[in-house]
């Protein structure tokens, strides 16, 4: 492929990826600003939210990490807490094993940036045939990462100045996941998995409460999906 051709391909993939990331732009810039302001209010200079948003890139964990920096030094505690809070990423990786296959070096960055939002877009979207799938997914990841860093930077630098009525804007993330759930629902013929995820998560949220439900929900989902594998594969004839 010639250079011009390649640049064209990249540009086409970028333009195709961008619209999918617009809601995430709104959500990440807003949440990023909130995170930057939060760090500012704890007495950290702007360099902290900037570097942490760049390197950690896991929203809820960055809020937790801010608190970790304020208590006494305990690196192992920090590591284990991170593993627990981010354990859901394991599921994203397993879901993307096949989809990220054969993307070469850029795959490393795509795994590094595999956040909730990049996962849900890249795993449900049907990339049009004329667009390079790898670059499309790469740009989704890169754009989302960029938005988050921009938000954290604005919040960290101008933290004390920002005063506008944005209450409720963070709902944009909920709306995004609801839309992606509906899209996925309409695409699939059988809804076992979607119902298992929705039902067990709700049950675990009620039983364990908002701060502790993710791990039990993941274990329950794994357990039930494993239990229904045999009966499901009996009725399913499709080889894909």
């Amino acid at each position: 492929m010639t250079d011009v051709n390649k640049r064209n391909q990249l540009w086409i993939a970028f333009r195709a990826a961008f619209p999918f990331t617009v809601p995430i732009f709104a959500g990440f810039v807003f949440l990023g600003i909130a995170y930057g302001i939060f760090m500012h209010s704890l007495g950290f200079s702007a360099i902290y939210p900037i570097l942490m948003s760049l390197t950690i890139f896991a929203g809820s964990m960055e809020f937790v990490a801010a608190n970790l920096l304020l208590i006494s030094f305990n690196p192992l505690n920090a590591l284990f807490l991170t593993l627990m809070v981010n354990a859901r990423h394991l599921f994203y990786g397993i879901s993307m094993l096949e989809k990220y296959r054969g993307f070469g070096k850029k795959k490393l960055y795509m795994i590094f940036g595999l956040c909730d939002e990049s996962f849900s877009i890249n795993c449900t979207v049907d990339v049009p045939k004329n667009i390079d799938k790898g670059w499309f997914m790469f740009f989704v990841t890169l754009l989302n990462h960029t938005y988050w860093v921009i938000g954290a930077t604005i919040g960290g630098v101008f933290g004390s100045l920002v005063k506008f009525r944005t209450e409720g804007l963070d709902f944009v993330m909920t709306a995004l996941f609801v839309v992606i759930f509906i899209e996925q629902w309409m695409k699939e013929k059988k809804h076992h998995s979607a119902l298992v995820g929705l039902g067990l998560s709700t049950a675990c949220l009620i039983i364990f409460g908002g701060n502790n439900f993710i791990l039990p929900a993941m274990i329950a989902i794994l357990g039930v999906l494993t239990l229904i594998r045999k009966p499901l594969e009996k009725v399913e004839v499709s080889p894909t």
Partner: protein
Amino acid sequence: MTMNLTQQIITIAMVVLGTMLTRFLPFIVFPSGKPTPNYVQYLGKMLPSAVIGLLVIYCFKDVNLLYGSHGFPEFIAVAVVAFLHFWKKKMLLSIAGGTIVYMVLVQLVF
């Protein structure tokens, strides 16, 4: 601050390490050169819908049905998102519509 700069850097590095472990582990354990076990392939097929369901519920983790607004703004706004999406099937419209309704509800109504 209770930590010095080196301790802060180590703490942040641990959080980075933990996050990267959770992201890279599946790809390290099941490299693309080797065949992935059938069970893991099955999970890879089934998990996406389940995890997106989990993410939807995750967004409601701080909603309390017993106090305050009883989750009314959240449920109304989700209904708006779903209605717009089944009707027009335009991702940005559904998201923007639902978010604006939610902002109006929490700022002016509840």
